[in-house]
């Protein structure tokens, strides 16, 4: 059976306009999402998967998974990754700058002009409201990912065990959980009965 090539590979041949678009999309995402990288995931998916069709669902979630096993801010990892696959090295630079510039600019503006920013009661109320929206958006991603997960006994146990560890055992770095999950995935593949093995990498979509 033909192997499915899932990551679209247009590096080096992207038109300039697309690279500017990459910058712009990540700039907008970086400028409007409060609450860190997780808050950006739904918006990224909107733009990259649903609006521009640059990535398929499963590619997007693959990148999200990889962005969490690699060090650094998830938003930067995603921007670099998407930027490179869509626009080569220049694309990755532009996307990364796009997602970073608003964060740098807003802090400098606050540090220079608004030293009392954090203590302003209206700022605090607005922020608390935005967090309500952010929570809803991350919950949307949770439901979407849960729906497209290939649920097996193993994946259900891994998910449940991770939840138990996250909620009840503090001070566990997510990297160990992710690596553990990946290794269990490899173990499952290794112990799979012969013949059922190699072609089952395709995910339901």
């Amino acid at each position, binding site marked *: 059976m033909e*192997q*499915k090539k*899932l*990551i679209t*590979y247009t590096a080096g041949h992207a038109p300039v306009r697309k690279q500017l678009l990459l910058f712009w999309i990540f700039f*907008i995402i970086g400028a409007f*999402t*409060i*609450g*860190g*990288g997780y808050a950006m995931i*739904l*918006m990224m998916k909107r733009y990259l998967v649903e609006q521009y069709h640059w990535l398929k669902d499963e590619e997007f979630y693959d990148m999200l*998974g*990889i962005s*969490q096993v690699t*060090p*650094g*801010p*998830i*938003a*930067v*990892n995603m921007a*670099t990754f998407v930027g490179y696959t869509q626009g080569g*090295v220049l694309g*990755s630079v532009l996307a*990364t700058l796009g*997602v970073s510039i608003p*964060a*740098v600019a*807003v*802090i400098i503006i*606050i540090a220079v002009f608004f030293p009392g920013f954090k203590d302003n009661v209206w*700022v*605090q*109320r607005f922020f*608390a*409201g935005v967090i*309500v*929206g*952010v*929570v*809803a958006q*991350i*919950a949307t991603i*949770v439901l979407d990912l849960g729906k497209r*997960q290939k649920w097996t006994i193993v*994946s259900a146990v*891994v998910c449940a065990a991770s*939840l138990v560890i996250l909620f009840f055992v503090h001070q566990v*770095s997510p*990297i160990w*959980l*992710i690596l553990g999950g*990946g*290794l*269990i995935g490899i173990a499952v593949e290794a112990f799979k009965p012969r013949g059922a093995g*190699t072609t089952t*990498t395709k*995910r339901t979509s």
Partner: protein
Amino acid sequence: MNVMISFLALFGVFFKIGMFTFGGGQAMIPLLQKDLVVNLAWVPMKEFLDFVAISEITPGPVAINMATFVGYKLRGLTGALVTSLGVILPSFIIILIIATVAHTFRTNRWVSAFLDGLQPVVLALLTYAVYSIARGGIPAWWGYIAALGILLLILKYGKKLNLFLVLLAAGGLGLLMFR
């Protein structure tokens, strides 16, 4: 702080933290605290906590917000750019290396099994993020009801709903309702 801290030292601290913290910007905060407040004593604890609070309520990745803040306070505008670049570069380089071989990811049986295996963990991490962000940031019970309402709106209207407007509206709601 009277001693001038060199740009190289600033860059080094943030590069190291960007290189060795897994799990996103939030995971960097304890490490930053250990380095900046305890080991190097560049930033007093109270100021550090202010930086964290502001970074969490401003747009953009928390790690970059923090880096910019510390860099600016210690060495001004150039300092801010140096620290921000420091925290971004490790991610950028590592992902670039991975992305150049990414087209073979799903064609390799073992890498594919690895990626399938970690997905339920990512699901668990996101679920936990919903919980911890809600618990840390939503000040009243009805905020949870509002979050549920917004979730249902997003699910019902899907693409037709502008997500930025949703956040702005939620912020407006906060201005009116939270006390």
